[in-house]
Each structure stands twice: as structure tokens, then as C-alpha cells.
């Protein structure tokens, strides 16, 4: 950590805050403080400079217009590139995830991305809306990913990046793989408060940010019940949804 307190920055809530994206900020801050790690949650709007000293940077989802505007402002600021260079943690969902790659489409136009991860996004034949689940890359040591996706994009990974998960329910990147990660930069189409159903992923981000190998376990009774319910609802034999 760069300072006494863990600094968690949610970037551009004025542009990238479509559905409960604030949840990831709240969950990370809460899980840190429950372990006695003082956490400072910051919301930084797109007309403000990106803080250079933070430990975790979060990007949320957004409509096409705001997404394109966010890309321009993030690239012009340059702060996220510097953050990656000093191994800060970046966690992005949905439209924010697409921004991490080299290009994406908004309102029919190809737009340049931040080029922080080796992938490019284009438009799929239909909108991907619904439950998303898949087994996470074994090297990350996490249980099954569960979430909800709502996007029109398809993401094509290059050789320099690994997928977050192999899709078992939903579309994710392309119907096969879902999300991407490299170093301490991670993105997913599981949108909004993705960490609410994936507390182990939240703890991975906290471990990356603090450099600790393990964190004190928390009472995750309700998250576990929620995970169990959602994964059961989409299990092929379950017949639900």
C-alpha cells in the first residue's frame, strides 16, 4: 500500500455508473475495514484529475455516449497508465472493462481504448442479457464466477492477456471465454456490483493491493446463500430462468 490507508478510487461515477456499480467500491471498503485495514473510498468525477497514489481503481458500466466520453477523458488524463506501471490494482466491469482494451464500438463508431490489456471489442449479433457463470482461471484460485451481464459487445482476447473464466452460462466475451486479466488488472462483463456475488474475487483484489498472501476470513453467510441460489437457478438441470 502506498499510504497508511488503502485508497480505493471509483472513477467517473458521473459517466460510468449504470446499475449499482458503486457496490464494488462499498464492498471493497467494507471488507478491508472488517479486517482492520483502514480504507478510504473516493469518487472521482470525469472533470477531476485521477489521483496518482491510489491502490485500487474501479471502472463501472455506461451507455455508449458516456463510455466514449470516458475513454477520451481517461486517455487525456493518463493516470491509469501510470497506475498500472506501478502495479496498482484495476477492476473494471461492463463498459469499463471494454475501455481497458485497444478499441470498442459506441454508437456505431470505433473508439480507441486505454490499451492496458491486450484485447479489442466489437459489436455482437445480439445483446447479451441475463445470468452469467463460469469456472475461473485456476491460477487465480477462485470459486465459480456468478453475475448478471447486459451488453451488446463481443471481446476478442490477444496473446498477452488471459481470460477470467470459461463460460458455462451466458455470453461473456464471445460465448466461450469471459473477462480478462493480466498482472493486477482485471475486467469482467459481470456488471454492476459484481463483487457482491463473488466475495473471493473482492478478496483477491484486496490481497493484490495490500500484498498480503491471505486475509482473515469473514462471515459470508449471506453471500454464500446468494451464490448458491443464483448458481442453482442457472444450472441446466434446475430448469429455472
Amino acid at each position, binding site marked *: 500500500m502506498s499510504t497508511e490507508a488503502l485508497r480505493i478510487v471509483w472513477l467517473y461515477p*458521473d459517466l460510468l455508473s449504470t446499475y*449499482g456499480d458503486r*457496490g464494488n467500491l462499498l464492498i471493497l471498503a467494507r471488507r478491508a475495514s472488517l479486517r482492520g485495514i483502514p480504507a478510504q473510498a473516493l469518487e472521482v468525477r470525469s472533470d477531476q484529475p485521477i489521483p496518482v497514489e491510489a491502490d485500487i481503481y474501479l471502472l463501472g458500466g455506461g451507455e455508449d455516449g458516456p463510455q466514449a*466520453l470516458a475513454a477520451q477523458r481517461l486517455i487525456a488524463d493518463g493516470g491509469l497508465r501510470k497506475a498500472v506501471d506501478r502495479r496498482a490494482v484495476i477492476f473494471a466491469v461492463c463498459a469499463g472493462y471494454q475501455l481497458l482494451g485497444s478499441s470498442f464500438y459506441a454508437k456505431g463508431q470505433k473508439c480507441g481504448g486505454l490499451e492496458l490489456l491486450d484485447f479489442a471489442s466489437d459489436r455482437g449479433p445480439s445483446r447479451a442479457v441475463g445470468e452469467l457463470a463460469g469456472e475461473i482461471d485456476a491460477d487465480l484460485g477462485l470459486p465459480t464466477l456468478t453475475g*448478471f451481464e447486459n451488453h451488446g459487445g463481443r471481446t476478442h482476447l490477444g496473446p498477452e492477456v488471459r481470460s477470467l473464466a470459461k463460460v458455462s452460462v451466458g455470453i461473456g466475451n464471445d460465448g466461450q471465454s469471459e473477462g480478462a486479466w493480466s498482472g493486477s488488472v482485471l475486467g469482467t462483463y459481470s456488471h454492476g456490483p459484481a463483487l457482491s456475488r463473488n466475495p473471493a474475487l473482492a478478496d483477491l483484489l484486496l490481497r493484490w493491493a495490500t500484498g498480503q498472501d491471505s486475509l482473515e476470513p469473514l462471515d459470508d453467510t*449471506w453471500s454464500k446463500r446468494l451464490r448458491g441460489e443464483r448458481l442453482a437457478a442457472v444450472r441446466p438441470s434446475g430448469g429455472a430462468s
Partner: protein
Amino acid sequence: MEGPGSATLVRVTTRRPFRAKLATTVSKGAAALSRATGRGDGSVIGGRLGLIIDPDLLAHLATGRQIALVSGTNGKTTTTRLTAAALGVLGPVATNSFGANMPTGHTSALARAGDTPYAVLEVDEHYLPQVVASTHPFVIALLNLSRDQLDRAKEVAMMAQLWRDALRDQPVHLVANADDPMVVWAASVSSDVTWVAAGQRWHDDSWVCPECGGAITRASDDAPDADWYCTGCALRRPTPQWTLDGDAVVAPDGTRLPVHLQLPGRVNRANAATALAVAARFGVPPADALPHLAGVASVAGRYAQVERDGRAIRLLLAKNPAGWLEAFDMADRAPTLLSINARDPDGLDTSWLFDVDFAPLRGRQVLITGDRAYDLAVRLDVNEVPFQHVTTFSQALSAVPPGRLEVIANYTAFQDIRAELDRVN
């Protein structure tokens, strides 16, 4: 869009004798059948059949009536009821009071209405362009626009654009909320607008100007009717003609009208202000309308109060983040049951729970239930709001002491609890 020109009128009169009349009769018959067989309240099926026989039936039924439309993300059922009550000063008013707010519902409502000269129709915000084109309304009330069921609904900026395109060059008077930048932008294509300081507690869909992409700045974060302006262009809060002052509505001429509603909260006083503004346009003096507004006790179960086992239960419907903020403002500091489903009418995505700050509930006894209670449990845990999970309504009743129990639920969860309470209206 076609205006109400003479060619349209000729077409109406030549077609109406057979198709429209037959369609109206079938529509009313089907509605009666639907009610008699207990399969529905008849507010949709009748209209659906009528529109199959005569696709222009809604336009035909609208001809010759003075119609007010009410649309927006939140408050449209209540505002429709209040507006219909206010127009009741003039005589009978046709309205779709079951919340059937798509063209089939409008058709059923007007088919039932005989030759009633006035109608107030609640309109789903997606259907506003179509219903404006069909009914040529006299007044449209535009309440607010915010995120709602994003897995299905249009995004907020797209919805504002849809309204803006539909309202351009329409010969209709608008009564619009000056406190919602999205509504102001949509309505500002018209020069014939009465602005109401109806408030918008929810700001997270209007930080960015829909006109220029600049930042929207507000004078205060907690006043629902605070001044606002765009830092990049000329879009700013218009000066409202109708405002709220404590328990009173202030009319354009400065008259303070004490509003004594049975419905709780500032947001309902704002809905009353909108209803009074619409009614004034129809020639109803606000002072005459006030007692009619006071007579509205509940709206399709919303705000209904029921005694059960010594508990005074009050039902509040909240379907999206903006609605939840208003519900917390309305509710008493009393034991509170929250119920969340995510069935088709609710939207399948519960992510929005993290857009709501549940902190106002700290210090109250909180119970949770519903199909998606676990989503809510995780949210409340992060929000540091203690709660107890119950699986049935009777379990909830026995978990709270005698006295007030506030129930806040989203759409199908609300209907489930209403069913427990014998479909209270």
C-alpha cells in the same frame, strides 16, 4: 406525425359506424367476461381484442374528448389518480385506474367510458410517442426519468431523446417537472410549458447534460427542488410556476393552497401540484380541486393501510432506486418489511439494490423477504443495516410488535403482499 386535420376527421366518421363500433362492443364484452371469470380485471384483454378488430380504435375513441396524459418513471399511477380526482370537479372522467398503461389499457378505459368528455390516461414512458399520436392530448404531464429495469427498458438518455422527438411541434400543453434535467431537456422543444417544482431526489442519471455532455451542477445535494444548471451550455432549471412550500402548493398567482392529502410524503404533495396544474389548464380552480385530492386514500393498493393482528400495516411500492429514496422519505420510523422479487415485470437484474442507500433504515427494525431476499441481505450487510430474514408474511407480522408496520416492496413482491391482504385497494 399527423395532426388532427380535417382529412383525419373525415376518415374517422366514415369508418366509425361499423368497425369502431363493433370493436368497442367486443372490447367491453371481453372486459366484462374477463372480470366475471376472475381471469383479470379486464383492463387489458378488452383493449387487445378491440385493437385487433380496429387498429385505429384508440384514435377513434379519443376523438372528441379532452385528454390528459401522465408519464414518467415514478409516480404516474398516483398522479393519474390525483388528476382524475381534480378533473372530477367538471364531471365524470375516464381513466385507466388499474395502472394498465399501454395502448391496450387506454383503449379499454375509453371503450368503457361512453361519451365522457374528459379522460386522464397514465402512459408507460416507452409508449408516449405512440399514444400522443393516437390521442392528440390536450395536456401532457411529464414527471421524471430515471433508471428502471435496465435489462429491458431504454437507457435514460435514450428515453429523454424519445420524448423530445415525440413532443417537437405537437400542439399540446406540457406540465413538466423543472427539477429533472432530463425532463426539462425533453420538454424544452416546446414553448407551451407550465413548469412545476416537483422535485427529484435522485441525481445519478442526470450528472451529464443530455444536450452538450457538460457537467450539471446543483445548488444543494439534499433539497429535491434545488437550482441546477449545465456548466457547458444554456440548459438550466426553468423558473417553476407551481412550487411547494412545506405542506402547501403555491399556485402561479402566489396563492398558497394548503394540501391535506391522505397520501404520505413530499413526493405526493408534488404529484398533487402537478395534478392541480393540469386541472387548472382544464379550467378547474385549484381551490375547488383540493377537497377531491384529499379524498384519495390509496391507489391500487399503494399507501393502503390495513389492520391485521394489531399491526397497522401500510403498503409502499418502490420499483427502482429513485422510488426507494422517496419511500424512505415517506415511511414512519417504525418496523419495516422490505420485499424484493426479480420476475419479468420487476426486471431480472437486482444490481440496482446497490444504487440505493439503505442507511435511513438504521435504527429501525428491518425484516426482509421475497424471491431475491438474499440479494437484499448482502446489500444491507454492506450498508451496515441489521435485518432479519423471514419467509412468509405471517412470520413478518409475528416478528414485530403491535403498531405500525411499513412494507416497502417492488412490483410483484407488492402484489404478493397485497394478495395476502385480500387484494386491498
